[in-house]
């Protein structure tokens, strides 16, 4: 069998991973604060051997860095909803106790009075989790300051309850953890806090950031992959017929 069939197969296998990634983006088109990962690219890997240099197998280049470009803002009017600006990310406690980062800002107060997100993950402040006293009206400032105030006292000065752990990730590439949270790419900061970048951190209260998946782009990529899949299958079918005609040449005349 000609090796060409295997070259086409290798390409189909690699593109299948790309398709998985695109479909995952499409499935998360409504997930709050979802960020696309930079798409995969194909790179040729040449196999040196006898004959001409035609055996160039495609392999995926992994560029698995979170694309922090903003998603559409959705005004909800809920004071506990925050949308993070620019490249700001919010510190969160992962299930295994490590520090992870997220862009989702649907915050709420848990039964124990701590601030968590709607997925039940504990939001971190600069000095650990932020606790809200019973019955206090919480507001979140532009710089991430969490303030509490009694709703019945008129003109009372709000009490500062804590400061959200906001970090600027413009200088620190982030990758994804298996649980979907972000973590710094640099190994020494993985699962930990990282030094904030030069840009200032800020958020908008009363809004949620939608997913930054561009459905048009994803659909076009999907079309591209579908058509290129078809041409590869055609190549394999072609090889099959060449092989068959080769074999028929050797057949003994009846």
């Amino acid at each position, binding site marked *: 069998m000609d090796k060409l069939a295997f070259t086409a197969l290798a390409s189909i296998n690699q593109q299948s991973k790309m398709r998985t990634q695109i479909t995952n983006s499409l499935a*998360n088109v*409504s997930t709050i604060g*979802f960020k696309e990962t930079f798409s995969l690219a194909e790179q040729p890997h040449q196999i040196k051997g006898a004959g001409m240099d035609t055996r160039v197998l495609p392999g995926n280049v992994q560029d698995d860095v979170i694309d922090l470009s903003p998603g559409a803002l959705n005004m909800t009017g809920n004071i506990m909803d925050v949308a993070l600006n620019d490249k700001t990310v919010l510190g969160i406690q992962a299930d295994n106790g490590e520090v992870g980062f997220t862009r989702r800002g649907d915050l709420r107060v848990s039964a124990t009075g701590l601030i968590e997100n709607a997925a039940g993950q504990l939001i971190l402040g600069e000095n650990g989790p932020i606790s809200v006293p019973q*019955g206090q009206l919480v507001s979140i400032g532009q710089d991430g300051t969490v303030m509490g105030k009694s*709703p019945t006292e008129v003109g009372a000065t709000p009490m500062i309850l804590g400061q959200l752990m906001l970090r600027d990730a413009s200088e620190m590439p982030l990758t994804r953890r298996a649980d979907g949270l972000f973590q710094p790419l640099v190994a020494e900061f993985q699962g930990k806090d990282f030094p904030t970048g030069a840009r200032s951190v800020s958020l908008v209260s009363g809004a949620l950031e939608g997913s930054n998946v561009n459905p048009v782009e994803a659909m076009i990529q999907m079309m591209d992959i579908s058509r290129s899949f078809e041409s590869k299958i055609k190549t394999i079918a072609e090889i099959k017929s060449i092989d068959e005609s080769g074999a028929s040449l050797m057949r003994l005349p009846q």
Partner: protein
Amino acid sequence: MDASLWIAKTGLTAQQTRMQVISNNLANVNTTGFKKDRAVFEDLLYQNIVPAGGQTDAQSQAPTGLMLGTGTRVLATEKLHGQGNAINTENALDLAITGEGFLSVTQPDGTIAYTRDGSLKLSATGQLVTSGGQTIQPAITIPQNAESITIGRNGVVTAELSNGGGSSQVGQINLSLFVNNAGLKPIGRNLYASTDASGTPINGLPGENGAGILIQGSLEASNVNVVEEMVNMIETQRAYEVNSKAISAADGMLRFLNNNL
């Protein structure tokens, strides 16, 4: 079979759940004291295909890894306890709560449920009950010879007696507060039950310690915003479409494969 078929399926299922949530919100646009729901989406776990920092040869490491996602799901539906509009009904037994707090009512099985629906009525024995006939806690009985009833902002119920009997204070309506309103479990009939997530109720008097005040002669309307729900519906529909496109693309590829090889 093909991973992307199943990933797109998670997208379809999640969007369908969201559509249910939106339809329920729209159906309850005129329900007194109704609080809208929001579907909370979450991306599923990621498969680690190539670990970041893995050794690619003796000297170098892979700078980044390859993680493939497995789709999405609706994690929870969250009640948004924003204030609904107060609608003036001029009915002495209609109450709107502005601010935090719930009226507590006794259920037929003896447990306590909580409601924002303040359209109270009088039972045959003169007790204040909800439209569903459940007694509010603490029970307040209006005397037979009452001519008019006044409910103050702080919940004090005063009955003006007939034939110059003067006015008499017959009780005070309490409000129950929760640390996490979103954790209350809606049990239908405009009622909520407390859960571990909501925390135990803290009883307070209207206007004190963070509790809201009562407005007599008004009802709190549903906090559903029809325009917002319509926009959500369009978004859901389109998201459903792109996911079904992904399925048909994968299906088309498999069909092509079967027909041509």
